[in-house]
Structure formats: C-alpha cells, structure tokens
C-alpha cells in the first residue's frame, strides 16, 4: 500500500476542530491510483469534514495532505479543482436561480470569442446539448431543463450534481452520499457511472451508508468513528461481511492499528 508513485492521495494526521468540537482527529489515509474506496461511519462521525479538508472548502487545523506526489495546501475549492479533484458535496453546491445547463457547466462554461476575457460569449446551444447527454447517463427525468434548479425535486438536484462531476475528467473523484435521495433506477445508473470510472482507472472516494452498494462497487472500506479512523478493510481480498463493518461502525470492534481511537 506504500509503493511510492502509486499513491494519488495521502493524508497524515489530518485534524479539524470547530471551536471545541473535535470533528476530525489525526486521520492517516492513503488512496492508490485506480482504487475505489468507501468511507463509512455514523452520522456526525466526521466523513464530510474529511472531504471538506481535502477539497480545500475549509482550512484544516493541522496535518498534511499529499496529492499526486506533491504536498498541497489548497486555499479554496478552486485550487483543489485546478489540481484535478472533482467532488459531489453533500450540500450539492447548486445555484438555485440558474437552470440545469448553467449549473452543470458552472465554473467551466463553454465559450466563444475567448479573446474577450471575462466578457467572452457563452455557447448556450452546445452546453444545452451536452447537458441532455450528461443527464441521460444518470437516468434522471427532468421535464424542462430550462427550469431553475430551485424548482427541481431532491433527486433531480442530486443527479445534476452527479452529472456535473461525471462529465469532466479528473485525477480524483469524491462523492459524498451521492445516491441518498435517488430512486431505484437512478441509483442503478449512478452505480453504473461509478463502474465506468473504475474501468477507466480513475480513483474514487465514495461516502455511503448503503452496505450493498459499498460491497458491490468498492475495493476497500475505511470506517470513521467519533472523528477518527477506526478500521481499514480490504473487502475485495479479505473475508469481511456487512456485519463486521457494522461492528466497526458501532464501536463493537476496532482494528489493532487504530486502538487509540477509543
């Protein structure tokens, strides 16, 4: 697991305190190229906090992040994206008053007349076409993509956020509970998207509470408990069941390496 050059993301002693709340304590985490890892854990265990530190949405309290071989210190999500990290956040990050294509291409619009700098022209038509295609992939149904996002259902919003991430290639994809609000069919489609990423060798971090999904799709499970990592389970190769994972989540079990994570 420590073959140098083979690791896309590594965190060392990553810690985040909100005032007196210790939301994340000394997280040591590694992700190899092409690997798909699930993060599981109770509500409030610090999973999203972990993601927010990696993507530069918040500033860490202490610790190091090494991405693609280089120590990084993202000052904002813009930095992280430029470095090649794409994320679907739990809060979705959509602009309520814009329509679907606008949201899908937010921050990397297709433009014409690029010599005009910030005043360059938007290529609405092409963005609209690409949007329809991207949405097909997620299987969601949206009667009118020109409607504003605020008028979309919970699942439709989530699918737009996922389509956004899936449309653009990246060095690392992070999805924070992407299928939470999705229906049966849409969930199946999103799982297909994840499989495609696996085939293409793109690494992925998936946060999910869905045991079946994790066992179907992922290579490895990292369990968070009370702000600390308490288990690192190679579900592809070792003999691990859902009950084992639940035991780690609830605290009935802890791996020896992580004993201090009482």
């Amino acid at each position, binding site marked *: 697991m420590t073959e140098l050059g083979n690791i896309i993301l590594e965190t060392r002693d990553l810690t985040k305190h909100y005032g007196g709340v210790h939301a994340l304590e000394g997280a040591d985490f590694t992700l190899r190229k092409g690997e798909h890892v699930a993060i599981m854990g109770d509500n409030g265990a610090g999973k999203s906090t972990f993601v927010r530190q990696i*993507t530069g*949405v918040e500033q860490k309290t202490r610790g190091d992040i090494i991405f693609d071989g280089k120590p990084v210190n993202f000052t*904002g*999500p*813009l930095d992280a*994206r*430029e470095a090649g990290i794409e*994320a679907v*956040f739990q*809060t*979705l*990050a*959509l*602009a*309520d*008053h*814009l329509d679907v294509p*606008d949201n899908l291409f*937010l*921050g*990397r*619009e297709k*433009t014409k007349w690029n010599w*005009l700098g*910030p*005043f*360059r*022209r*938007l290529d609405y038509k092409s963005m609209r076409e690409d949007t*329809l295609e991207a*949405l*097909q992939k997620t299987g*969601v*149904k*949206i*009667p*009118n*993509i*020109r409607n504003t996002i605020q*008028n979309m259902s919970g699942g439709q919003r989530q699918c737009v956020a996922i389509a*956004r991430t899936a449309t653009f290639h990246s060095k690392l994809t992070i999805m924070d509970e992407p299928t939470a609000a999705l229906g049966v069919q849409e969930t199946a489609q999103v799982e297909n998207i994840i499989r495609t990423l696996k085939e293409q060798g793109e690494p992925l971090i998936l946060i999910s509470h869905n045991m079946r999904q994790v066992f179907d799709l992922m290579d490895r499970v990292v369990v968070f408990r009370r702000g600390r990592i308490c288990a690192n389970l190679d579900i592809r190769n070792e003999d691990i069941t859902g009950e084992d994972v639940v035991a780690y989540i609830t605290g009935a079990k802890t791996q020896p390496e992580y004993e201090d994570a009482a």
Partner: protein
Amino acid sequence: MSKTDHGVGGLTYDKSKKGWPNEVNIFAALILIILIFEALGQFLPYMNDQSFLFDTNGRFDTIFNEARLKIIILQVAIIGIISLGVTQVIISGGIDLSSGPLVGAAAMIVMSFAQTELVNGNPNPKAVFGDWAFDLPVIVPVIVGLCFGAFIGAINGSLIAFTRIPPFIATLGMFLICRGIAQWWTKGQPVSFPTESFAALGSGMMPVVWFALLAVLFHLVLRYTLYGKHTYAIGSNEDAARMSGINVKRHKVLVYMIASMLAAFAAIILSSKNLTAQTGMGQFYELFAIAMAVIGGVSLTGGRGSIIGTVLGAMVFGVIQSGFTYIKLDAFYQLMAMGAIIISAVVLDQWRQQRGSSRN
C-alpha cells in the same frame, strides 16, 4: 423519455403555459401609470383637457408631446446609468450605497480638470488648479473620472470580497468617505465653467444617448457572457459558485469596479449637463438607483433581475416625476404619492409572480 429540446422526459410539460417574462409586468405597470395620468388630465377640473403624452396644443409635428417624451427619459437617464451598475451589484448578491456620494466626489474631481480659462472674457473665477489645468482635451477629465470610479469600486469590491464584511457596511463606509472627498476637494466650493467640448458630453439629449448605449451593452454582457453568468451564479448561491471553481473574489471586485465606473460616468454626464459640480450632487441617487432596479424586478437577495427590467424601472420613475408636475401636485403629496407608487409597482409585480408558483 424521448430526447426533446427542453428536457429529458418525466412529467408532462406544456410549453405553451410557460408564463411570460417578468419584464412584461413592469411594462404593464408603466402603461397603467401613464393611463392614470392621461385620465387625471381629462378629469381634473383645473387641467383644461390637457393631455399627458399627446400634443393637444398642436405645438409639434407629431401626435405626441415631444417635449414630454424627451424629459421623461432625460430626467432619469443619469440615475439610470448608475442603476445599470447597481443592478449588477444586486444580482451578484450585494448592494451599493456609495454610488450617490461617489457621483458628488467624481463630479468635483472631473470638473476641476475640465475648466476653461476665460468666462465671458474674464479669468475663470472658480479655478481649482493653476493654468496648466485649463482647456485640457475632453479625454482628460473623462479618464480621470473613470479611474477614480474604478479605484473606489476596487476598494469596495476588495473589502467585500477579501474581508467578507457585508456590502451594506463596506459601501456605507465608502458613502461617508466619498462625501468627505467631495467636500475636501475644494473645501466645499462649487467648481464651474467647463470647456465647450466637455459641456457637449451631457448637453441636450446626450444623457439619453449614453444611457441607451450603456443599457444595450450591459444587457448583452449580462445575458450572453461569462461575466454575466458568473454574476448570477454568485448572487444565487455564493458557496456553490465557489465550490464550482468560480473565482468569486476576483469577480466581485470586477462587479463593484464596473458599478463605480458607471456611477463616475454618470457624474461626468451630470456635471457636463449642469455645467457645474457641487459637493451635494448625487444625494439620494443611490436609493433611487436601487429602487429603479428593484421595481424592474431585480431581487435584493441576489440571482434574479435584468437590465431590461431596470430600464423599465427607470422609465416608471421618469413617468411619475413628469406626471406629478403635469397634474401640478404639491411637493408633499408628491413625496407621499411617489412612495405609494413605488410600493404598488412592486406589489403588483410580486402578485403576478406568485400566481405562477403559489407557495404560501
């Protein structure tokens, strides 16, 4: 689930019932107000059957009262120019209270670079600088003014973007600072007697021409460019815009700079139109510029609005002001009626919007 132009299936979508754009309401309100004035002109006993918009005295060649049509737009053109900038600021989720005092300060500064040497054959009694500043080419005061505007806007924008204080406070502080600058520049003395070429910038219907040109320009910019899209995105959900990788800070600085440059340009036109600059110029302009935008459908919570709406909002003010003089309303009643009309215009608009999606 067939692929159509407007969606990827799901519910029945009846395109014909889409609801007309917001601007149509404001236009309707404008027409309504005009009709009310026409009606008042007919029914008020002391009005002698005058008409508001039509030429009943045969003074012009057209059927309209040309002078009235002109003044309706002329008197709001300058605040209208400011309002174009304020519209962008509000769409981006901010507010700009400093535009009024900025007009005062910019006018003082601009005019002191636009002075002429001889007035009626005598030396200019209001000279601010020495001889070198007389009869400069018109481009000098214009550039000076725009640079000053850009500078103030950059400060506003940077404060808001980088220190993240509320725009209300940043621009309220700038409000006071600009008033200070205006008074300090000449210790309160008015600055007058510009060169002829400077005077030409704002004479006659020129303010309307500028307003129209700038309105078209910024309509296109907001609607069809990256700048416009990002302005809406930031106003709609700043966090989302940031997480999507938009450089929110830089964009905000740009928005406030553009707004302040528009206000400075308004100051140039205003001082040229009046042939003078005074410290008190531009008082309350910030409030009226905001009001025009809001009447035009710009949402103060950000993310919604358009330049067309703002232009119509400006027209509403123009019609009201002309209408009041036309029916010879007393000054106090004018204030009250203006207040009532602003409220009613927005109520009307709100009411129409709610019918579409009637959450309670």
